[in-house]
């Protein structure tokens, strides 16, 4: 069987997900024996615009150029895998979506009175193209990308975790920060896969893997944290860090905004 052709591409993001692939280190060399790398932006100058079996795309669509490149990659790939939160829900750069216009953001950074380049409100890939698989995480986990690679090479569809961080937290017998300490942990609504890294270190989950698709009970998270004494804006910000484009949080934000009336975040 011919080696599958793989392309690794990046749109707007921090490069951390490609780096996590490189962080497979020695294992990467073993893995790469089984595939043909056609493009690996962060690691190689080879950038062939040919058809690939699997395209891994990192980063959010934040510019017209991103969009153009994404569409091109989609056309050339049999399977397109979004890696990292940026490519799924836009990640932190999307946290003010619907709250601030791009013009406002631009003025904030570049000052007023200039004519600025055209940027898009950041979104994940699936807003624009069909995505075959999404690997959540900011960044993705090496264990996970390894598993995905192995599954695909073995010929199977990778299994993606679709349950909350709390499960992994319990499986590791970490103390529950939310229940025992009243810390504002987002574990109950965030997709597992990190092996509950933060609770394991005594840190409340900020949700870097993004909310669980179609299962996010954001309203209850708000309610729970309000009861613990956190203020609404604080909680909303937290929910938005990695989840501003996710349905449950979007709805909640909208509701909160209607309640208080007018724009916020100023």
């Amino acid at each position, binding site marked *: 069987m011919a080696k599958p052709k793989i392309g690794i591409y990046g749109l707007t993001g921090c490069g951390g997900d490609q780096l996590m692939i490189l962080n497979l280190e020695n294992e990467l060399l073993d893995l790469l024996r089984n595939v043909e790398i056609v493009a690996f932006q962060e690691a190689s100058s080879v950038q062939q615009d040919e058809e690939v079996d699997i395209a891994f795309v990192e980063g959010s669509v934040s510019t017209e150029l991103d969009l153009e490149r994404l569409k091109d990659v989609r056309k050339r790939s049999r399977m397109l895998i979004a890696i990292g939160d940026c490519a799924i829900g836009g990640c932190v750069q999307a946290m003010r979506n619907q709250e601030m216009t791009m013009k406002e953001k631009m003025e904030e950074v570049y000052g007023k009175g200039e004519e600025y380049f055209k940027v898009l409100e950041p979104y994940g890939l699936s807003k624009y193209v069909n995505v075959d698989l999404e690997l959540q995480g900011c960044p993705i986990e090496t264990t996970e990308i390894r598993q995905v690679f192995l599954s695909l090479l*073995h*010929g*199977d*569809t990778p*299994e993606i975790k679709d349950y909350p961080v709390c499960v992994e937290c319990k499986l590791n017998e970490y103390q529950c920060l939310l229940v025992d300490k009243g810390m504002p942990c987002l574990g109950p609504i965030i997709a597992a896969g990190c092996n509950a890294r933060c609770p394991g270190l005594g840190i409340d989950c900020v949700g870097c893997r993004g909310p669980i698709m179609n299962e996010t009970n954001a309203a209850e998270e708000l309610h729970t944290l309000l009861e613990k004494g956190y203020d609404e804006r604080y909680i909303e910000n937290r929910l938005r860090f990695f989840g501003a484009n996710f349905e449950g949080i979007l709805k909640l934000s909208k509701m909160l905004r209607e309640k208080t009336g007018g724009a916020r975040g100023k």
Partner: protein
Amino acid sequence: MMENVFLPKLAKIVKNEKMTAMEHFLRLQLLDKKTAEEFQYNLGQFIEISIMGVGEAPFSICSMQNQKYLLDLCIRSGGRVTSAILRLGEGSLVGVRGPYGNGFPLKEMEGSNLLLVAGGLGVAPLRSILQYSLKNRAKYRDITFFYGIRTYDTMLFRDEFNSLLAGGDESGCKFYLSYEDPKDEQCLLLEAEYSDRCMSGVVSKLFERTEISPKDTYAIICGPSIMYKFVGQELTKRDVPPERILISLERRMRCGIGKCGNCIIGDGSSIRYVCKDGPVFTYWDALHTKGMI
């Protein structure tokens, strides 16, 4: 040394044949002779097939026990394990555990009429009963088989059923076929030829074609979950007692032996494990166990 029930036994694929676009016929032979000889199953039981590195899934055995200790299965692909099975060539090895589940009460059904109602892939466990009852024809009275398909292309064990259709009552079984796509050409041809035994519509429509005697009839249903409700209603309308209507259920299963808990159904007063209390239940169970159908 105590036996580890979770450790699969190796079996060789002796046949892996495409039946339709989605289904394959799989024939397995257990490698170890002794294991094979000890492998006695009831019709309606299932086995767990393991593919190394992929996982494990339950499948009904679709033929009656035979002297050569071959296990026949009919597998619909699409998931991880099922797609992997499809890739495996003849001679490849898979892991097998089982047989598990209760199976059908064949002894109890002796002397009765049998009505077998299959929808789509549900034909798999019913085919074994059909085989058995035809082989032991004298033990049963009327044998009627309803088979519902979507299109001719999705029909399983096509040759066998076509010959039943062609054979009419002579075949020992009254075979009826329903198809859902009214424009399917091959089905239309069949209907033209066997208008009394073949019609378009869902499988429960076949009840219009034949009389079911409420007395002394055992009905066995297997198919997609909504089918149970409709067929069950048709049968109860015809006064077949719910405890003589048997259904075979599908649930997510990870162990097959009542440990992993994924297949639990019911309410406080009727919790059941589909794997070990079933997969065969009566319609009476279904009426009294919440969430069963």
